[in-house]
Structures are given as C-alpha cells and as structure tokens.
C-alpha cells in the first residue's frame, strides 16, 4: 500500500491537515484526530484527547472506596459491570475477604452479559461506520434484551453500579435465570445472522481484510490488550492468566488470531461472543446458594497500608486499578490503567499510508469508548 503511494507521486502535491472530530459520528464520542494528509492518503494521525476528562483519579483521593465504585461505570460505560468489579475485587483482596460462591457466579454471569451487550453495540456501530445501517438496528434489538435483564435485577440499564465491595447490591430477581436463558436461546439463533449480514459480505470483507495490520511485537510494545491485541496473537486475557470471580471454574477459549488485520479484530469479537454465551450457559443453572454480601466488610472501608493492583478483563482489554493506601478511608493515590488509552495510540502506527475510509474501519475495530480514555 505504501509503495503504491510513492510511485504515484508524479504530480506534485501538498500536505494539509484535516480535523476529524471532536464532533464526528465515527469517533464514537468527543475524540479529535488531526490528520496529516497527502491527497486522501494519511501521513500521520495525532489524537487529541481530554474533552471529557472528569478528573476521576483526583476525585478518588477524596472519596471513600464505596463511592469510587460508582465512578467507574462512568469510565467505560459499556463495560460497567467489569469496571465496578475491578474496584470491588481490589478492596476485597486488600482486606483479604472472600466473597461467597453465589456472588462470584452472579458477577461472572453479569460480566459476560455486559461483554455481550458491549460487543453487540460495537458490531452494530461497526456496520454503520462502514455504511450499513441495518446492523445497528439488529444489534440494538438484541441488546435491548440484556438491558431489560439488567434493569430488572440492578435497577439501571447502563450505569448499573451493581457490585459493592464484599458482594452485590441486591440478590438476583426471581425472573433472572429464566430471562437469561430466553435471551441465550434467542441470541444463539441471532448470532449467525451477524455473520450473514456482515462477516460474509463481500464489500465488508474487501474493506477489512489485509487492512491495518498490527504485528504481535507492536501490539505488546504499545500495550494493546483485549480483542484488539488478541487478533494480533498477543495472549493477554486476564480471565485466563489471572482468573478472578468464577472464571477458573468455567471452560472457554481465549480467542487468538494471527493476522492482526481489521478483519481479524472483527472476527475475534464475533468469536468472543460465542465464548461468552458458552460461559453463561455453564453457569446459569448452577448458581449456588449463599450470602450476597460478605458481612465482615464494614460500611466505612479502610484498606491496610500498602500498594495494590487488580486487573480485570473488560470488553476492551485489561483494566487495571492501582491503589496506594496510607490506611485512611480514601486512597492516597489511585490510578486507572484504562485499556482504551493504550489502544488508541496504536492508531497512528496502524493507519499510515491508508485512506481516511480505512481509518474509520480501523478505529471501529479498536472499539474506543472515549470516557474510558479520558477518565
């Protein structure tokens, strides 16, 4: 691709800049990309972030650990459960309390439902970014069922705030198991439709295959995690390498691809949805009895002095929480290692030499959520 550009350089052209965003539908939020262009060929991309920076880390230094949990689902709102879980797990591990098996299984089911709903939204928007509006409608039809399940059990559809340190806020709704099973049954017939609509579409394949290749070495060096990194063969699934909650008792595959192109990143997420379905199926009939909140976790939580790090696998990659505690009710310093932040900055490396339309496809398969980057 790059050589082709150089040989065509018979006419003298001038480089110029175009701002893409901060208000642009395909940047999925307030992200500004400054494109350095030669004709339609991209020479360089400079992402400008911070439009939705809410100083969550600074706020956390004044908040109690119970309050910090609810800030986290304002970061990556599509991975709300996993974000909540990261802080809860950190607090529980630091206090050395063990939550009941019931909580572990509920958290795992909830996380996988969240992953499904996040990937559904991504799939719908990916089609739309490439000009296929139908996928958006299909994805939202299926995603609605998950949101209804959340609403019934958690009382909220997006910023659920369902995990609390030591357990979950409420027990599952009596309808929960049946509704999840209904959803899984219906979604298993819908998922092949996704392939029919997009994965096997000739135009889609031509726009994604062999485009935006990211090598495994670069993925590691840029710290690209999640399905984006796994599509380049970088094995980074926290659920596999450092199992938490009930992930050590379910069987699932870590989806690894070898090509690292836009289509691999697309395919990795589609296959991941099948794995999530399988995890939920294994657990939904086997929710053990037990307490939903560990009574030894007090209302005002003080972590012991020390430093703690906890990572979870969100729909976008590894979310890490790093806490320096001085024994008070608020952390001395708290850092969120958000997956989106690292994933975004590989874009410039990937996109050089391609066209703007390819950039849109690549950005779509990195699956950015801007509040997750800006925090």
């Amino acid at each position: 691709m790059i050589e082709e550009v150089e040989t065509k350089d018979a006419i003298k052209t001038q480089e110029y800049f175009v701002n893409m965003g901060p208000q642009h539908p395909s940047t999925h939020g307030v992200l500004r990309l400054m494109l350095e262009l030669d004709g339609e060929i991209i020479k360089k991309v400079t992402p400008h972030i911070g439009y939705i920076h809410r100083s969550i880390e600074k706020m956390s230094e004044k908040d109690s650990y119970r309050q910090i949990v609810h800030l986290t689902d304002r970061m990556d709102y599509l991975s709300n459960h996993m974000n909540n879980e990261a802080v809860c797990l950190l607090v529980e591990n630091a206090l050395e309390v063990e939550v009941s098996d019931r909580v572990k299984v509920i958290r795992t089911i909830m996380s996988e439902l969240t992953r499904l709903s996040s990937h559904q939204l991504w799939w719908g928007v990916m089609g739309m970014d490439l000009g296929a509006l139908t996928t958006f409608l299909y994805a939202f039809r299926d995603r609605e069922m998950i949101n209804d399940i959340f609403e019934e059990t958690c009382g909220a559809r997006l910023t659920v705030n369902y995990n609390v340190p030591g357990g979950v806020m409420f027990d599952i709704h009596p309808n929960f198991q049946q509704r999840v099973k209904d959803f899984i049954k219906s979604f298993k017939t819908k998922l092949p439709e996704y392939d029919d609509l997009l994965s096997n579409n000739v135009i889609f394949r031509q726009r994604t295959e062999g485009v935006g290749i990211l090598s495994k070495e670069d993925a590691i060096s840029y710290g690209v995690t999640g399905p984006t990194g796994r599509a380049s063969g970088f094995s980074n699934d926290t659920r596999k390498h450092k199992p938490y909650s009930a992930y050590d008792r379910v069987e699932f595959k870590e989806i690894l691809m070898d090509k690292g192109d836009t289509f691999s990143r697309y395919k990795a997420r589609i296959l991941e949805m099948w794995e999530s379905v399988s995890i939920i199926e294994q657990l939904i009939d086997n929710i053990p009895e037990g307490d939903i909140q560990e009574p030894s976790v007090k209302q005002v939580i003080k972590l012991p002095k020390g430093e703690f790090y906890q990572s979870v696998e969100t729909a976008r990659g590894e979310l890490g929480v790093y806490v320096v505690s001085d024994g008070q009710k608020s952390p001395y310093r708290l850092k969120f290692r958000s997956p989106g932040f690292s994933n975004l900055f590989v874009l410039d490396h990937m996109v050089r030499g391609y066209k703007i339309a390819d950039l849109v496809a690549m950005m779509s398969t990195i699956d950015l959520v801007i509040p997750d980057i800006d925090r």
Partner: protein
Amino acid sequence: MDNESLKAKIAQWVPDAEFEETGTSKAQLLNAIITPDKLLEVAEKLRNEDGMKYDFMYCLTCVDFPEHFMMVYHLRSSETWNELVLKVKIEDKEKPEVETLCHIWRTAEYHEREVYDLFGVVFKNHPDLRRILLDEEWEGYPLRKDYADPVNMISL
C-alpha cells in the same frame, strides 16, 4: 525467574537498589526501587535480557509523596506473565526529571505525557512532551498534593 533470583540479578546491576514486596499475601509483587540515573540501563536490561523479557509495560504512573516523587512502572513478560514493579525515586521535588522510556516500550510515550500533564515530571529526550488531558494553557499540576484547585469543586 522467581523473585529471589530476580532480586539478586537487579542487585548485581544496581548495588544500591532497594526492594520491597507489595500486594496481598496471595499475590505478592516484587518492587525494585532505583535512582533516576540508573533507570535507562536497568529498563533496557529488563526488556532484553534472556529469562526476563519484560516486554509489556502495563501501567506507568507517578505518586506524589511528601518528600519525593515516585515513578511506578508495572512490567510483565508476555510469555511467562512474570511481573515486576520498577520504581524510580525522584528526590528533587522542585525540578523532577527522569529519562523517557518510550523507545523501549512504545506505550510509555503517552503514559509519560499523562504524568507530565498531571504531575509535572519532565521526561528527558521525550519526542513530544505536551499536555495530553488538560488544556495547553492550564496552570499547575492537578495530581500533586499541594495543588490548589481555584474552583474547588471536589474538596469536602
């Protein structure tokens, strides 16, 4: 490589390195604390030495302590998933400076910009050291403990 032999190896490179273990009793992380002048040498060895290959920097941040700044680098080997926390103690609070690591781990470039933005730590030889989250004209470094917020929305 287990924590003990790792400790011995780093102590061989940097005789005055300090060590501590952090985390919970179940998951202990080895912390190696070094001075800024040794950072580049140690980082390159950790990245390239056989048996270590800490090729994945998964977190980079800074902590403002009353007497010093502490740069914190969380490193992991993508093959073995061994982990190590490398820390650099910056004693000079007036003019904190440390060498950039962005040519060893590419992800460091942007995380360092964030630390520069929020803590005011200057990274020497960084290719593009600008504010990243805040406005170019922002005054002060908000994550420092002595930062006074003029609007004061978050103090209780």
